[in-house]
């Protein structure tokens, strides 16, 4: 069972720390919510775990009946990201519906306001004529 090269662990750790720092900062600025932070952080955490504990990767690959540990790692990442995208799809659909509804309501409201203003102007004009 080969150990992961130190260089690899360092590269992955740098990437993970950098990426975690980036998404935590986004969360702190309220550009991401906590759920997004948790899901996206797995992109950093999973490779670190696999790099730091290669035995764990082999053990999982053995259980899953997969020849190569990296397939397990990518499989896990794919599953997590799929759940994330699945949830986003629902969210986007709902937001799109809300957005359409708002566009319709605001446009109708504007038409009503314009109509009322026209009416007022006409009454004012008639008043000034008489």
């Amino acid at each position: 069972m080969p150990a992961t090269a130190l260089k690899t662990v360092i590269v992955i750790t740098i990437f993970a720390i950098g990426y975690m720092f980036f998404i935590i900062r986004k969360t702190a600025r309220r550009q991401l919510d906590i759920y997004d932070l948790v899901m996206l952080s797995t992109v950093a955490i999973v490779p670190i775990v696999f790099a730091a504990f290669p035995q764990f990767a082999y053990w999982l690959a053995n259980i899953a009946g997969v020849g190569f540990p990296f397939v397990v790692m990518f499989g896990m990442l794919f599953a997590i990201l799929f759940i994330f995208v699945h949830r986003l799809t629902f969210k986007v659909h709902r937001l799109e519906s809300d957005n359409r509804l708002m566009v319709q309501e605001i446009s109708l409201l504007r038409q009503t306001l314009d109509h009322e203003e026209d009416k007022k102007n006409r009454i004012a004009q008639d008043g000034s004529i008489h």
Partner: protein
Amino acid sequence: MSAPRVLIIIPCYNEQGAIAALLEEISGCQQGYETIVVDDGSEDATFQIASRFSPTVKLLRNLGIGGAVQTGIRYAQSNGFDFCVQIDGDGQHPPREISKLLEAYRKIPSSIVIGSRYLQNDTFRSTWVRRFGGQAIAWTLNTLFSQSAVTDPTSGMRLMDRKAIKFFVKHYPHDFPEPISLAWALKEGFAVGEVPVQMRAREHGNSSIIGIKPIIYMLRVLGYIVLARIMRASPR
């Protein structure tokens, strides 16, 4: 008993060449129809021209034909109309034919009455692809929904009563709205009727469904209709 209030919904996008004549033709009918023009984010002078003749809503952004029609349906509900009739803004649907829809409703009150180009009236000419697509959609609807016997599911000329208005305010498809709204309405158990009407050829602008688009349109609509058949009815 007072006459029912009828609202004509005219969705349009870049119809500056046709909208004035259409609105003048409607007022020339002298049937007491009220109109609402829904300008779906036109880039030309449609809104300015239509506003001179009729209440006009300018959508803040382009929502597509489904979103525009649903805006008109919302307007009908909030202003207490008994019926709304959807017609195209390009002048293909002669306003004098609207009385046929109302007459059909008086005889048999179906919640939706479609103005059909093909029912007892095979004079309307279209490309064979479009006719084939329309027939395939009609056949699918009539097969999947036993109470359906439509011949022109893609017709953009249709009447809706209060029940249909109430339903479509909440649920109206944005893609391919004519056939899919029918499937949804049939799924809800609404009665759908048809009456033969004359339609004109488009005089201004071009249809957006050209080339191989009718085939793609048909396939997507068929998929949506099958989905409508298997999905649950919406809570009212």
